[in-house]
């Protein structure tokens, strides 16, 4: 077995061991390989953080693990449409430093997903992929921003 599979298998074991204790509290509802035969494609489901305009929504993500993981970060994208200053509305692409330059092998798939959950509630409007959402925040229109997010969450993430 190659090094990538060994590491992913270990992450999967840790996930299964911690599942019972962490599922209730964490925003990460599901994190698992799409298919038992291929450890390089994963899917994740996260709940919108409580108290955020995403609350009540369920967001699906796909994770593509590169063959030289953990030297390279996994590619993670939203499948569910999400309105967020750092997520491209049309493609689900995520702008987060640890998915690009600030990646380190210390991150696991689980901790990376939790970082994305954290990003939902802590947008970074200075490096936007969704300029409309970012502009609302940059103009200080918190109410307008939250209403917009709540609307899209209701449309796309609450079926």
């Amino acid at each position, binding site marked *: 077995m190659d*090094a990538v599979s*060994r*590491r992913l298998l*270990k*992450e999967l074991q840790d996930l299964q061991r911690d599942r019972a204790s962490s599922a209730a509290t964490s925003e990460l509802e599901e994190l698992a390989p799409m298919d038992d035969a291929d450890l390089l494609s994963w899917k994740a489901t996260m709940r919108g953080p409580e108290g955020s305009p995403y609350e009540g929504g369920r967001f699906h993500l796909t994770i593509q693990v590169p063959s*030289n993981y*953990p*030297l*390279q970060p996994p590619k993670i994208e939203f499948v569910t449409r999400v309105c967020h200053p750092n997520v491209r509305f049309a493609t689900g692409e995520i702008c987060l430093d640890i998915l690009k330059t600030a990646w*380190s*092998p*210390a991150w696991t798939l689980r901790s990376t997903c939790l970082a994305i959950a954290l990003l939902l509630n802590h947008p970074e409007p200075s490096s936007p992929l969704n300029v409309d959402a970012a502009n609302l925040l940059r103009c200080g229109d918190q109410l307008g921003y939250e209403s917009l997010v709540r609307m899209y969450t209701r449309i796309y993430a609450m079926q």
Partner: protein
Amino acid sequence: MALSPRTSVVFVPRNAYGTSYHGLVQIGQTEHVVRVDLGGTPEHPQWRGARLLGSSALRELLSSQMDILQAKLELCESIEAFTAELEDVLEKQQQQKTVESSQSAVSLDKTPTVHASFYAGLMDELDAVGWDFVFELDDHSVVLCIDDSSGQRHTVRAIMFADFPAAPPRLENDYGVALRVERDVNGRWLTGALRHMNEIVARYQHVWQVLRHVDESLWVLDAEATASLRLSRRIVLANLVLLELTFHPERPETLPSWRFLGSEANIAPLRSRWHANRALWSTNATTRENLEVLLGFPPPTRPTETSESGGFECGICYAYSLEDELTVASGEGERTSLVPDVLCANQHCGRPFHRPCLIDWFRADPTARQSLGVIFGQCPYCEQSISASTLASRTPRM
């Protein structure tokens, strides 16, 4: 490579109406007789319904093509057209055969010719050694085994070359001890090898017993790899604290050479205690008893969960032992596995890494810098600076 055998096809009519033909098919040196009978009446011969008849030898030769030829025959308009078809099929088949036979010829070339003297010599040697000591035997190697007084089996593999017994065999064993390759007084190789192996077993019997005791009574990390005679053991003392002991091959009961592994804050008190108590090492006590005296606490025993590696897995690949692919690839035939040997110096972190994993990460990390065979970068966990030598280092062997 042989030239492709010549094929030729000739047909002659058997009657004036041209409703039946005799044919001669030549493939290489052999000739085969075929017959083509047309359908219809003698007045109105028809190619539809024509039949191809041939000797059983030819039929066998063309087994897979026979049906195709029959189908083609019925579509032909003249005997000339069919002649061309048949020639085409035969030529293709011959080419295929030539390729196949040349391939098998190549594979045969790789096996050197073995003379009867090889087997005569080998049998003579094995008779002299005694068949009780023969553990495995195949056409170019023999494994001899010796059971020591404690019942452990030791093996030595002799690999014979084609010019054996004139040329010496190559001897391999698991112990990292080079065996002398020399003839005994009767000019035999294997008896000499077995005798030398016996000497080694007798000589190192003691150290093997001590090591086995260490493996059983202490939490030794790489115990799976201890079949070979590595004289060093890594013993878990606490989370992320290891003691590496290297035993003396002939006096294993004396104080082994030692090295603590872990973050400085954790190992400093252990090291000073060890220094202070060093003289208390007793040659009559077991290693475990001695460790307890020198460290001031009983060392932990191996947990029942076999997967636990004392938190000493590499922080990058998450595995404890890493097969050294370089060694395997270079064909030394000796598989070494690496254990995490670079530790983060930050006492709150102290993460262990395999040197190759860390080097791979530094190569992927644009902030890392290399200078004179050492790469400097940051610990992936705590960002403390950490370095790794790119020059190969090997675990000490006997």
